[in-house]
């Protein structure tokens, strides 16, 4: 994850409290989604950024996870996201993030 964005995630968690923060990913591949999820839950696995060795434990979901989908406005979902839903492996993406969340997150919805 972009080092600047790692810092911003860290700042948000410090400002609002990690238990109040939920991270939602829009990644296109499962491997990338896993790295993002691991970074915000357990720290930067590459040890390059501000989250290296900082296990924030944030609740993290892919946007295609049913828990997030049910929160979205159906008409806007259709307009904004449904096209990508047809071309991406939504189940694999949601599952990849769920695996990291179950392993490392201290919080969940």
């Amino acid at each position: 994850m972009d080092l600047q964005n790692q810092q911003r995630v860290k700042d948000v968690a410090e400002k609002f409290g990690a238990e109040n923060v939920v991270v939602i990913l829009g990644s296109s591949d499962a491997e990338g989604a896993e790295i993002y999820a691991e970074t915000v839950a357990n720290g930067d696995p590459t040890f390059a950024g501000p989250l290296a060795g900082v296990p924030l434990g944030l609740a993290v979901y892919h946007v295609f996870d049913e828990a997030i989908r049910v929160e979205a406005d159906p008409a806007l979902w259709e307009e904004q996201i449904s096209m990508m839903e047809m071309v991406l492996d939504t189940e694999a993406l949601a599952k990849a993030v769920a695996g990291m969340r179950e392993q490392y997150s201290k919080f969940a919805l």
Partner: protein
Amino acid sequence: MGKLAGKKVVILGERDGVPGPAIETCLKSSGADVVFSVTECFV
């Protein structure tokens, strides 16, 4: 109200996946407080 209501939400979108603004738009009615939204790209 759903489970996202009142939560501070960070959106990490992706240009080749689902971009940040698309996720943000869809969640406006959920009561979530989007505090940071970005769209990364890998080029």
